[in-house]
């Protein structure tokens, strides 16, 4: 279903983009996501899997370049348009949307610093790719370091006693990378390139990191098996191992001197995006619930005729709307300032993902027994939304980081 956008400044182009993305989400993403949800992780990425139909169609239509600025081969989308499109894609399926998002990550990271050599080697080929043969991923968390890799400017981030499991050492004109990234790397086992966030200066703790954009066909790179999980089963995830992988200096986007600041900027984008995805999946659950409750009769009345259902639907609706507003506002603000206000993006992620899960959970209750069966979409939405409380920074840890930010910076100055 469509939704009323409370933004009175929406242009015709904004609306067309929304319609186009929605149609793609409904006609292409939904049927494929449902099939993938019932496959094993190996089947999801097998050559004949519908996952590749989705990726090829998405690339052909340019959905992989949403985050990339036009001069490098992306598009001139405003931040608002990016938010509008991403909400529709997430309405289609969060798992597939995350796949598209991380596919662009090495190019997105490279575009923040925009060195000629990386534009030529990483960004332009990715944008020009129309058949999903170039896929990126975001290598950041490790088996021993989950959310604690996501706390820039928090005191623990500079603790030199916290040692990362993936490290890069300078060696002549190259860096040599050893270690591993966790099984949670989205598109990890199918990616051709990686935006690798790893430790370079141990004395600085996690803050002594660097960001690389590297091809994964280098000698020494190997991958784990695709992860089998509760939800977002249409999203491939798995470990990447680095065994003395030699990488030229030119692949380094940023070193320890600016790592924390860059991570802050990156997270301000990604956590806000998770909030946008949350609005999409919450809205999907609300759509399913309205459709069901308007038709299901119990005790001689339609479910929508019961006051308790009316109240539940109202609170679900409130969560969808508030999630959209905070996520969009945080995303647009932080995409358009040099120093992001990360705590606002954290609100979008933490509040939004909790709200999305609550909406999906309440939806199943309204569906009753039918909500537990695979005949209805809602149980997939419920499982997909559960991951979001942990994915991209567990809500608990982001609340610590966010709280720390609020204490340090509130109130920030306008303008």
């Amino acid at each position, binding site marked *: 279903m469509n939704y009323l956008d409370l933004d009175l400044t929406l242009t015709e182009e904004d609306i*067309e983009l929304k319609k*186009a993305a929605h149609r793609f989400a409904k006609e292409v993403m939904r049927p494929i996501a449902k099939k993938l949800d019932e496959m094993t992780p190996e089947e999801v990425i097998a050559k004949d899997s519908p996952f590749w139909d989705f990726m090829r169609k998405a690339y052909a*239509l340019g959905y992989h370049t949403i985050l990339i600025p036009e001069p490098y081969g992306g598009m001139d*989308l405003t931040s608002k348009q990016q938010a509008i*499109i991403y909400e529709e894609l997430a309405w289609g399926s969060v798992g597939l949307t995350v796949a598209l998002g991380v596919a662009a990550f090495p190019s997105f990271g490279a575009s923040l610093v925009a060195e000629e050599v990386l534009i030529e080697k990483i960004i332009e080929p990715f944008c020009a790719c129309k058949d999903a043969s170039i896929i990126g991923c975001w290598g950041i968390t490790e088996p021993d370091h989950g959310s604690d890799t996501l706390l820039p400017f928090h005191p623990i981030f500079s603790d030199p006693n916290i040692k990362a499991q993936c490290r890069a050492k300078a060696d002549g004109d190259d860096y040599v990378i050893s270690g591993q990234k966790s099984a949670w790397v989205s598109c990890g086992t199918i990616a051709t390139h990686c935006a690798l966030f790893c430790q370079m200066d141990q004395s600085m703790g996690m803050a002594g990191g660097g960001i690389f954009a590297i091809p994964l066909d280098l000698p020494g790179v190997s991958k784990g098996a695709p992860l089998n999980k509760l939800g977002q089963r249409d999203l491939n995830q798995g470990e990447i191992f680095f065994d003395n992988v030699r990488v030229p200096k030119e692949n380094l986007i940023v070193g320890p001197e600016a790592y924390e600041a860059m991570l802050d900027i990156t997270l301000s984008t990604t956590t806000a995006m998770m909030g946008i995805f949350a609005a999409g999946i919450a809205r999907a659950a609300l759509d399913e619930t309205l459709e069901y409750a308007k038709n299901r009769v119990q005790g001689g009345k339609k479910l929508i005729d019961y006051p308790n259902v009316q109240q539940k639907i109202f609170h679900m609706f409130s969560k969808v709307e508030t999630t959209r507003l905070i996520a969009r506002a945080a995303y647009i603000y932080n995409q358009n300032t040099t120093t992001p206000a990360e705590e606002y993006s954290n609100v979008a992620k933490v509040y939004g993902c909790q709200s999305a899960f609550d909406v999906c959970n309440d939806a199943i209750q309204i569906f009753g027994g039918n909500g537990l069966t695979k005949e209805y979409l809602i149980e997939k939405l419920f499982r997909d939304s559960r991951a979001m409380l942990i994915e991209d920074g567990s809500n608990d840890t982001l609340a610590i980081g966010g709280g720390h930010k609020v204490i340090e910076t509130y109130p920030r100055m306008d303008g």
Partner: protein
Amino acid sequence: MKILVTAKRVTDPEMKIKIKEDGSGIEMSSLSFKVNPFDEIAIEEALRIKEDKGGEVIVVGVGSDKAQTEIRYGLSMGADRGIHVNAGSDPDSDAVARILAKLAEMETPDLVILGKQAIDVDDNQVAQLLAEYLGWGQACFASKVEISGNTARVEREVDGGIEVVDMDLPGVISADLRLNEPRYPALPAIMKAKKKEIKKVTPSDLGVDITPKVVVTRLSEPPRRKSGRIVADVAELIKALKEEARVL
């Protein structure tokens, strides 16, 4: 090749339509609109011909001033420019055919492709009337089109099967369901579409009188399907078939 196509603004076929109490029309509030699916197929075919032979695809929308949205959709699929004929509301099929005939005289296309019918009124008349007004050949219900030189070889889906006709160009083709699967607009194409020209005219600019020749007097819902019932014996069945269902 210069190809003219139509993009009619129709109600979204997935919506539930409610007829007004007085039968004078349909409830227009909370309806969403899109391009007539058969016109989308026509636009797709025109784009494929252009990609093969070169040329220009012009999208024409005839209707209210909101019809511009659907023309813009055709541009975002890849058409080159648009013409918006603002008639205030949707004229009847005969008036649309005469409007398109006038535009064809002005633009001199090699081919006009339309959807075989609009999914709101389902007239299936414009393509046929247009061909007659222009004195051109017509190949309706196309499920395959091949252009070579000045001839279009068209496979037509007719009741008995597939009929193959060779039609001289310029000619009129109406698109049927199986002609192709329309592309989704690519995001960059949607962004580019806003820079493409949509020329605005009115029927009087074209010298076309749109006084309706066909007037809809009343709309009503078909009778609700009643549930079945068990009859006692064959005699009662035959009586019911004769007197109630009236099929004997």
